[in-house]
């Protein structure tokens, strides 16, 4: 059988077998309402043909399709879609990072060392950073785990700091918190304050003052820098002086003389209250006792002071207390107030006596002075609360303020200064000194005194 004949037989055979079911099909189509469906179908087809025509116009002949996805890709070129995707990714990155940064809580610990702790809202530590060289050294050697609770980190950190003698008795810890929410800061202050107090009690380090302050996250300065800046602004202290102050001093100065809000931990607050109370008592007792026993004590004091005077005169000037240092003759006049300038006496002529004001001043200067917030810090020889501290007092906790302090307090101590000027005024005769003898215990030999006077003083 030939190939063509075989194909013909196959075709004929199937033709005989195939049934004519056109009527059945048409009826089925009518039953299915396909005939009525035509109008919608035509409309839909027109729309799709329109899409196809547009796609052809854009040169996508090989990509003709009625599928929505493909039509979409035909309408928008791929490079536009990829650019959109890139933009979306970039936006996600930027806003994602910013969103996370808002949830970050920063804590700066100033002991010294100064360390910045970055943590999340759950108070899990994310990063540590040393803000100064000591801080970097401590962070480098500190054993801590990422995402561990900040309280545990503080325990380890305090242990390390105490072991390395960065923190000892009467030290200070300044904790600066910056968080997006103020409530977070308050909760942290409470929790951290308790934790620090507990750990310090464990480590048997008493007298540590723990203070908290809040700062804005975007603030240029963090930690103790904020307090330093405040002291510079409100007290006129120099930057070098402020930078050399210990954390404890910073906290105390800022509490006494600035409007910075510092919150103390419970233990520190109690200690602070006790200190204030004690100072008040110390202030009250001299007032009452001085009036009653003043006359009795005067004699003893005279004897003691004359002995001290002899010893101190033998000391070099650098080691003498500030209030007993010889006053240089060319001390600036602006230290005296205007009233004092009016009543200021001309150079001593050897005959005039001191005015009444000056006679009363020695009593006043012995009275303790109340520390007033906003006033400049006290001068040398005074405690932080404004009390006059005896020269060489071993109990004075704070160092005497630096020279800048004296320069920036024209009113305070002007009487004393004037007094000391008067006492050491060259040309002052014996009689005047003798009348002031009780109130001017210090007798110094100044370079301007004549040889006769020197002999008299020595005698």
């Amino acid at each position, binding site marked *: *059988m030939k*190939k063509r004949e*075989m*194909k013909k*037989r*196959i*075709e*004929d*055979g*199937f*033709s*005989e*077998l*195939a*049934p*004519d*079911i*056109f009527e*059945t*099909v*048409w009826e*089925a*189509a009518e039953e*299915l309402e*396909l*005939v009525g*469906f*035509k109008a919608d*179908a*035509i409309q*839909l*087809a027109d729309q*799709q043909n329109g899409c*196809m025509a547009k796609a052809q116009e854009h040169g996508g002949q090989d990509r*003709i399709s*009625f599928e929505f996805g493909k039509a979409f890709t035909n309408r928008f070129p791929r490079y536009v879609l990829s650019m959109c995707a890139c933009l979306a990714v970039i936006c996600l990155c930027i806003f994602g990072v910013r969103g996370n940064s808002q949830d970050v809580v920063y804590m700066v610990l100033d002991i010294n060392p100064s360390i910045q702790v970055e943590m999340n809202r759950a108070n899990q530590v994310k990063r540590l950073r040393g803000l100064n060289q000591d801080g970097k050294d401590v962070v480098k050697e500190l054993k801590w785990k990422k995402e561990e609770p900040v309280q545990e980190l503080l325990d380890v950190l305090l242990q390390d700091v105490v072991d390395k003698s960065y923190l000892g008795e009467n030290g200070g810890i300044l904790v600066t918190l910056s968080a997006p929410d103020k409530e977070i800061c308050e909760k942290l202050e409470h929790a951290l304050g308790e934790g620090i107090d507990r750990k310090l009690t464990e480590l048997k380090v008493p007298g540590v003052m723990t203070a908290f302050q809040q700062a804005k996250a975007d603030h240029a300065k963090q930690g103790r820098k904020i307090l330093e800046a405040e002291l510079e602004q409100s007290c006129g202290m120099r930057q070098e002086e402020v930078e050399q102050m210990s954390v404890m001093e910073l906290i105390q100065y800022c509490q006494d003389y600035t409007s910075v809000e510092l919150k103390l931990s419970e233990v520190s607050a109690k200690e602070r209250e006790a200190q204030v109370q004690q100072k008040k008592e110390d202030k009250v007792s001299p007032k009452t006792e001085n009036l009653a026993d003043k006359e009795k004590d005067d004699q003893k004091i005279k004897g003691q002071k004359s002995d001290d005077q002899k010893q101190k005169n033998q000391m070099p000037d650098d080691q003498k207390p500030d209030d007993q240092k010889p006053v240089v003759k060319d001390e600036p006049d602006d230290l005296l107030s205007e009233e004092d300038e009016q009543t200021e006496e001309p150079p001593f002529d050897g005959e005039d006596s001191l005015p009444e004001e000056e006679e009363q001043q020695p009593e006043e200067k012995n009275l303790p002075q109340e520390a007033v917030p906003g006033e400049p810090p006290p001068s040398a020889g005074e405690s932080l609360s404004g009390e006059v501290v005896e020269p060489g007092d071993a109990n004075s906790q704070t160092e005497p303020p630096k020279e800048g302090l004296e320069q920036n307090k024209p009113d305070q101590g002007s009487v004393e200064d004037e007094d000391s000027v008067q006492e050491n005024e060259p040309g002052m005769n014996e009689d005047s000194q003798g009348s002031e003898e009780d109130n001017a215990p210090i007798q110094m030999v100044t370079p301007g005194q004549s040889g006769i006077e020197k002999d008299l003083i020595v005698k």
Partner: protein
Amino acid sequence: MQEGTPKRKVHIDERLFERIRQGEQDAFRVLYEISYRPLYAFLLSYTQNAEDAKDLLQDTYIQVFKNCHMYHEKGNPMAWMMKIAKNLYLMQSREEKKAVINYEDMKDQLSFDNITNVDNRIVLEKMFELLSIEDRNLIIIHDIGGLTYREIAKLLALPLGTVLSRYHRVIRKLRKEFGEKL
């Protein structure tokens, strides 16, 4: 028919679909007359059951009628209709979980008694007896449906070379069989 297009064994004017879209029964009738024999042969080859093939043929024309607006003038309309028929068969097979139908099981249901010409009946009987479904489909699609080898390859998802070699092997096999007996 567009100028330049090759002359096909089964030629379907693509404008028929436009007329069918507008609801012309005559156009649908023309389309049916041209295409129902290859389609039935194709479906019978698959199903090996006259009734199933008949049902599927009806469903195929329903789908063609329903989706004639989806047809775009590209390619062979017969290939498009055969694709619909094949998909319907596969769907039905999947539903009935009888994708592979054994000829022995269907033997009693497949009857060529309606064929009056004895030689034609013998040829078809031998064809269904000797050839597999794929081989039968190759003969039907190419020789009755008039699809090109390339269109067959696309429809059956086979490489073109496979289609060519398999087709010629099947023809040789049938010639050998019928040459001896007829």
